[in-house]
């Protein structure tokens, strides 16, 4: 019974990881840019919500309003990122990594200066701050609902809409697409904006679970990187599978082999890469 609860909790955690990581994988897939500021963007969403509503429970409407505000902030920061990254288009991953790492330090230190360096957390909104049957936090169910909704919307946009078809075409053959009169730059920009907005949204969604503190940006960045690398980079399907797998590793896995808990996360990633050197859904190069 308790293992079932643990597995269910792994789904909640996996849903949060999906929202956190999917933007990273989108930007990597379309722009071939490794955005190491992704963790700082997550942190920006969380701290923005903290600065607006503080640590006391608010109504669900206010909470959703703040989440939307974070999305707007993510769009703005995404605009900044796409301007910053443009001169580096052909410079390779490592230069982009250095740039986005610098930007991540600037953003996260700025947030800690504006708020403070203390430990903070977001409270779950009223109505979701209790427990179901006194033994499972209602907010985590809400995270699953929100995660599935966001995943569904992402899949729908990418697989079923014209916009999604254009994005996929831009991945496969940008020259061809440009030749047929489509503004590829605009497609790229919208993917960066969407990816960054998902990161800041994840910051609000995860606020009540992962808290807010110095060093959070690196911690969630590493989690997101593990999720997308296990999934095979650059595919939304891979990110979803990676997120669910890592969610279970971090819950069911550590419950089953607690003595290996400290090694488990990285050992699983290493094992996946030995088995499939380009991730579970990765195309071998």
């Amino acid at each position: 019974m308790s293992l079932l609860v643990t597995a269910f909790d792994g789904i909640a955690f996996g849903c949060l990881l999906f929202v956190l990581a999917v933007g990273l994988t989108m930007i990597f897939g379309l722009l071939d840019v490794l955005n190491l500021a992704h963790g700082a963007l997550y942190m920006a969403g969380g701290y923005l919500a903290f600065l607006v509503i503080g640590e006391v429970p608010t109504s669900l409407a206010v909470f959703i309003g703040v989440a939307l505000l974070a999305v707007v902030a993510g769009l703005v920061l995404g605009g900044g990122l796409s301007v910053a990254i443009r001169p580096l288009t052909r410079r390779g991953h490592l230069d982009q990594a250095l740039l986005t790492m610098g930007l991540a330090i600037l953003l996260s230190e700025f947030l800690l200066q504006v708020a403070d360096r203390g430990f903070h957390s977001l409270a779950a909104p009223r109505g979701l701050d209790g427990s179901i049957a006194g033994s499972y936090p209602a907010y985590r169910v809400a995270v699953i609902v929100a995660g599935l909704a966001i995943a569904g919307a992402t899949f729908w946009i990418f697989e079923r809409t014209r916009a999604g078809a254009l994005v996929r075409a831009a991945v496969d053959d940008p020259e061809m697409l440009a030749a047929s009169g489509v503004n590829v730059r605009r497609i790229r920009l919208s993917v960066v904006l969407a990816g960054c907005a998902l990161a800041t949204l994840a910051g609000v969604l995860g606020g009540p679970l992962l808290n807010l503190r110095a060093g959070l940006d690196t911690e969630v960045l590493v989690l997101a990187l593990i999720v997308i690398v296990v999934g095979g980079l650059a595919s939304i399907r891979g990110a979803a599978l990676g997120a669910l797998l890592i969610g279970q590793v971090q819950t069911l896995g550590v419950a089953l082999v607690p003595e290996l808990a400290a090694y488990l996360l990285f050992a699983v990633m290493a094992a996946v890469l030995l088995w499939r050197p380009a991730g579970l859904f990765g195309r071998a190069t």
Partner: protein
Amino acid sequence: MRHAVLALLVLSVSACGGAATQSAADDSTIKVGAIVSQTGVYSALGDDMETAMKLYLEGHGNKLGGKQAELIVADDAGNPETGQQKAKQLTLENKVDVITGLIASPVAVAVAKEAGAQKTPVVIANAGADALGGPGVFRVSYTNYMHGYAAGKYAVEAYGKEGAVLMGADYSAGTETLKGFEDGYTKAGGAKPIKQILTPFGKTQNFQPYLSQIPSEAKFLYTFYAGGEAITFAKNFKQFGYDSKIKLLTCQNITDEDVLQAIGADAEGITSVGLYSPALDNPENAAFVSMWKAKTGKNPSVVALQSWDAMQLIDKAAAAGGSLSDALAKVGEIKSPRGTFTLDADKHNPVQNWYARTYEGGVNKVVATIPPDPAS
């Protein structure tokens, strides 16, 4: 040639760096070097530490032992290698009379080693590693072992003599505290704890998988978590309904002022054993709390109190005159907001009361006093 020019450039930077800080030591001033975390994961505590030390100096005319005081704060970034480098800088360049601060234990271990080599005394204001302390190393906080030991003794009376389960972060502060608890508990007549659950330190975002390992025959749970993990643990414990299944006793960090606001309503009713409570009734504490509140608008944290006392210890030792190292060992009773305490003669660790505190209505109310135990 470009290489050589660049090399020259780098070296000239290294030659200039920090040149402004050098000045000869003289008897009319006392230089205190504070190694704190201004950046990194421990910087929340670092802020409290720095504020408390400056507040003490402000309230004492910027003097320690009647001498003009100079406080030099250095950032260890939570890293022992950086901390040791700062200790070298403070002793060799700044020629400080004493080093204090020190949040994380690895940093304190590295700094104490370096300061010992440079014959500069160290006053530890937080780090709890059991092995620290001895000639030239003084501590106004606690050892992890004592912290757990006091809780173990209290648990026998208040929680019963059997059915203890221990849970904590898997690093030295966690395991040393739990070891102290086990010894304090069994020596006071309690049965050996039935299970110990360790969780990866600094990487656990979710305690549900570990809480679910508590055996059904358990009577109560003693836990050690600090900082971000303390917040997550307290919330998880309540929200997964464990508060109705098992009694909880915690270390002082779980309901410390630095995390209480973040935990929110889920902290209500948690009992912990710690060395301080802002609700303690003594004149030193009343003055300290009102001064701290005027400055920050909050209740003082344990780290703030310890940092205040570190300055107080240095103040008293400097007033005695002579070698500061010798004087620090002979200070005797310190009237602290936590109540009066002394340092033991051998390892210079505090001999102090511990308090069982229950968090109710916004404050940690003292429900029992646990006197110091010579056995710990």
